[in-house]
């Protein structure tokens, strides 16, 4: 069995996401859904409900400490954003945090992903995106393929990380050299299994290029730039310490205000420090 088959089999064997997420999705998709009904689904698990409230009160959502109940969270943030918070927390819990490889620790990986999520949402707001609901989640799950490798091809991924260290190359190049394909491809396998929406699949498969066939895909371009910001500021650890070159086309897609990055740096770091303590504890 070659490595690709091993990964494909690994994906098949991975369990589906916990029922709380599917129950929640069904409740939200019901055209007669009420915030009370959805809140009831979430309140069934007190620990999750508590965590959701803490995340909903994260500074980057803009409702610092004002949200006391799940019903309020739904009212302020909307069904989709609350579902996305649940999804982000579910995925973080889904993968083992104990599978440490050399200097690559899942906790640092998630810190990087959360940093990218926060930066993506900040960019979404800065460019005047009306529907920023998927921006945080898109950033959080963009590198999910790396965890799939860690889960189902542990030994081979150890070789990948060794190569990153010895040759000082990006993890993506090392993955291609050792495994034959990179985490964008692996992540897509998982995204298809979990039937994620198309825009999130695009993020997972195209965040390195910063664009899909659709040049107006501002979510993909935002994640592409947010990943660079998180690497530049050392928010968590993505598997290598290099900051990749931005694709020149993202600047036309995003049209960010002049001086944007230096103006938002301190806010991004503050929001990151607060949020990782909420989401990773």
């Amino acid at each position, binding site marked *: 069995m070659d490595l690709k088959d091993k990964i494909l089999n690994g994906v098949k064997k991975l369990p589906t996401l916990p029922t709380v997420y599917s129950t929640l999705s069904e409740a939200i998709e019901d055209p007669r859904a009420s915030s009370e009904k959805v809140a009831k689904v979430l309140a069934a698990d007190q620990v999750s409900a508590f965590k959701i409230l803490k995340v909903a009160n994260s500074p980057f959502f803009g409702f610092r400490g004002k949200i006391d109940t799940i019903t309020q969270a739904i009212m302020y943030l909307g069904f989709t954003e609350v579902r996305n918070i649940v999804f982000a927390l579910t995925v973080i819990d889904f993968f083992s945090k104990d599978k440490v490889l050399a200097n690559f620790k899942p906790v640092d990986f998630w810190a990087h992903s959360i940093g990218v999520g926060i930066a993506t949402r900040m960019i979404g707001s800065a460019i005047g995106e009306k529907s920023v609901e998927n921006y945080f989640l898109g950033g959080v799950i963009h590198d999910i393929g790396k965890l799939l490798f860690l889960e189902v091809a542990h030994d081979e991924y150890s070789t990948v990380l060794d190569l990153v260290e010895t040759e000082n190359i990006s993890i993506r190049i090392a993955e291609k050299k050792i495994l034959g394909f990179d985490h964008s491809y692996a992540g897509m396998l998982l995204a298809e299994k979990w039937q994620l929406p198309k825009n999130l699949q695009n993020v997972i498969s195209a965040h390195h290029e910063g664009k899909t066939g659709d040049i107006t895909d501002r979510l993909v371009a935002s994640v592409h730039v947010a990943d660079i910001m998180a690497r530049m500021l050392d928010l968590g650890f993505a598997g290598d310490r290099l900051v990749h070159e931005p694709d020149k086309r993202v600047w036309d897609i995003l049209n960010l*205000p002049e001086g944007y990055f230096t103006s938002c740096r301190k806010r991004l770091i503050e929001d990151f420090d607060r949020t990782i303590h909420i989401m990773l504890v």
Partner: protein
Amino acid sequence: MNKTILLDDFEEGMELAVPLKNKFGQVLLGANVKLEKKHKNLFRTWGIETLVIVSDDEGEEPIDESLMAEAETILAKKIYWTPKNKFEENLIQMGMDNILDKLR
């Protein structure tokens, strides 16, 4: 000297350095307007996220040359490309500011 700030960092008395425009390029407020408290909520309603204001930051202490050289060395280990436009220059400046903050 002009400086871009986030709306959250708005302070009464700041002065707009350039006209404030919406995403369609329409001027909402002219340059040199002194900002008042009421403007903050108004800007939020208009969907404004950043402002370019007049700043006297150039009065800050100059950065020590050796510190700057150390920061450049650290940054050079992470970045193998040169900026192609003002966005990328600002992105690199963000990284530089961050390293300098850590070194100080």
